């Protein structure tokens, strides 16, 4: 990478860290450290909530998904706006007004200590692992693209993040998120403009080419439980996922607990309700744009340079032959793509069909190359997460590439920082202060909180070095959560049922998770539906159990 790009990355990362710490005030108390003394404005919290969700996984993986699979991934977010509105009038006033530090603390007040401990424990396990996965995404890609060991790539992201999270607490996290969102939107819009300018076809023709291969197919209205992204899984399963994520996951709850008032907390969530789908559409459209761009500029046969080097070293002759076939197929596809762009009237369908056939040829050759990778390296033959970084580094002008890489760094850092901050809060408030040392002073809890942040940072770094081969990273992150999210949401829903008791909540949660485990391993039902199943089972089990001859609160 050009030194100017590196300079942009270094300046940006240093600015984020230093400014984040500078803006942090009153972090010498537990309330200031974890909740910013409830002083943050709605737009800071709102951007922070959006930034936490828009991690490096999104920056790297989602445009790659747009390039290979098109726009249909957006269906995952169809339930988000409704979920935000529901949360705004239910859980937000409940948690913000009750003066808790964590969502799980509320469950002890409503049910009992064991329900709180179990939900907090599940959060620590699932989020501790997902912090590692979030760190692994850019770590793996940077390692391959820049040719540095994975451990170094992980350390480059992890060490500064742990430092500013430890020092600045939730305020440093929130202000870093604000910068991240601004930078990401600028970078994405700039990349979109560059794509449009550099393509030899106009936007209408580019969309026609993308549409021919199904990449503009946003909605799938089939009701198939084994299909990952459909309109219905997005609306129903997505609503439950978002309710769980934003309503019960401490990494999100902690953001709006830091808002000045219930109204400001509610407004911060509505920012996501309005903007998440348009923003996600932009990210995916950039990916679709990259796909069209690569119709006219030959992309590498393999996007992961490390895998390509391994294949060249082991199977040089066979790979060269494949590359030669690829070059020939690319020329034919380019001609077919231009024919689609130039076609009019009745010729359009025929031109599109010819183009689709040429695209299939390319995919066949790519499939052979990826199979070769699997044979040689033993690694999963998926290189979706490398498409966009390779495009950025080889095709974008100097400066813009640096801006993007800085954005990925910042995205990784702010998402991980939010997780570390929340993990530290739950560890200290739900376990250390609750069970081990309930009467210590603020200074003691603060020191333990910083130690907990460092511990979880180290844990995430270790997980990151092992999470590298788990397949499409963005889905891995979502799947980690789905195992518990639905059932934990079920407990919060049960809390709103008059007469629900702790026994129903505790055993309902366990049976809910067991059911999700059975569904995940024993059926082909996709993960978005598992959130619905988990929540519904907790209610179905929890309500009757609460009513069976018990007097406990």
């Amino acid at each position, binding site marked *: 990478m050009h030194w100017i790009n590196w300079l942009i990355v270094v300046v940006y990362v240093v600015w984020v860290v230093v400014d984040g710490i500078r803006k942090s005030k009153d972090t010498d108390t537990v309330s200031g450290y974890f909740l910013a003394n409830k002083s943050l404005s709605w737009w800071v919290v709102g951007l922070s909530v959006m930034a936490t969700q828009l991690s490096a996984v999104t920056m790297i993986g989602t445009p790659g998904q747009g390039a290979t699979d098109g*726009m249909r991934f957006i269906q995952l977010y169809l339930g988000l706006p409704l979920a935000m*509105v529901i949360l705004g*009038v239910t859980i937000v006033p409940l948690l913000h007004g009750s003066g808790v530090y964590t969502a799980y603390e509320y469950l002890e007040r409503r049910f009992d200590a064991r329900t709180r401990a179990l939900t907090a424990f599940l959060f620590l396990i699932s989020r501790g692992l997902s912090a590692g996965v979030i760190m692994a995404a850019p770590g793996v890609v940077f390692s391959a693209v820049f040719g540095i060991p994975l451990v170094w790539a992980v350390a480059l992201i992890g060490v500064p993040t742990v430092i500013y999270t430890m020092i600045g607490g939730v305020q440093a996290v929130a202000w870093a998120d604000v910068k991240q969102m601004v930078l990401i939107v600028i970078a994405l819009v700039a990349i979109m403009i560059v794509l449009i300018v550099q393509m030899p076809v106009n936007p209408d023709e580019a969309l026609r080419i993308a*549409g021919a291969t199904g990449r503009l197919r*946003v909605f799938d209205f089939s009701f198939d439980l084994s299909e990952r992204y459909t309109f219905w899984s997005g609306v129903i399963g997505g609503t439950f996922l978002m309710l769980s994520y934003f309503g019960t996951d401490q990494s999100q709850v902690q953001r709006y607990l830091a808002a000045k008032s219930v109204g400001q907390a509610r407004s911060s969530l509505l920012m996501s*309700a309005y903007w998440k789908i348009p923003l996600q559409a932009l990210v995916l459209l950039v990916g679709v744009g990259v796909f069209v761009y690569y119709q006219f500029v030959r992309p590498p046969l393999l996007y992961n340079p490390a895998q390509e080097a391994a294949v060249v070293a082991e199977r040089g002759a066979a790979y060269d032959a494949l590359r030669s076939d690829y070059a020939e197929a690319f020329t034919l596809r380019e001609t077919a793509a231009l024919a689609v762009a130039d076609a009019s009237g009745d010729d359009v369908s025929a031109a*599109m069909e010819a183009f689709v056939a040429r695209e299939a040829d390319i995919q066949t050759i790519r499939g052979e190359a990826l199979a070769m990778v699997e044979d040689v390296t033993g690694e999963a033959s998926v290189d979706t997460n490398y498409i966009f970084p390779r495009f950025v580094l080889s095709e974008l002008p100097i400066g813009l590439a640096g801006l993007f890489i800085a954005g990925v760094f910042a995205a990784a850092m702010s998402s991980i920082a939010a997780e570390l901050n929340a993990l530290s809060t739950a560890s200290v408030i739900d376990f250390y202060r609750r069970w081990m040392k309930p009467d210590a002073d603020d200074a003691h809890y603060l020191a333990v909180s910083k130690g907990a942040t460092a511990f979880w940072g180290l844990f995430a770094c270790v997980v990151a070095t092992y999470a590298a081969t788990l397949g499409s990273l963005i889905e891995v992150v979502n799947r980690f959560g789905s195992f518990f999210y639905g059932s934990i949401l079920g407990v919060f829903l049960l809390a709103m049922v008059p007469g629900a008791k702790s026994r129903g909540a505790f055993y309902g949660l366990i049976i809910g998770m067991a059911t999700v485990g059975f569904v995940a391993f024993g059926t082909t039902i996709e993960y978005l539906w598992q959130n619905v199943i988990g929540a519904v089972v907790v209610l179905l089990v929890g309500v009757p159990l609460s009513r069976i001859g018990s007097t406990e609160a």
Partner: protein
Amino acid sequence: MPEEIPSDGSDRSRFRTTLIRVIIVQVIALGLLLLLQLHYQL
């Protein structure tokens, strides 16, 4: 004592207003995406 969810009239009214606004914005956004799909799909 378990805490109850606030459910007064102003919350219900706020919910309804916000829901309508969010639905309008999303219908426009998703409508545009659907148009994109219908217009350019093979």
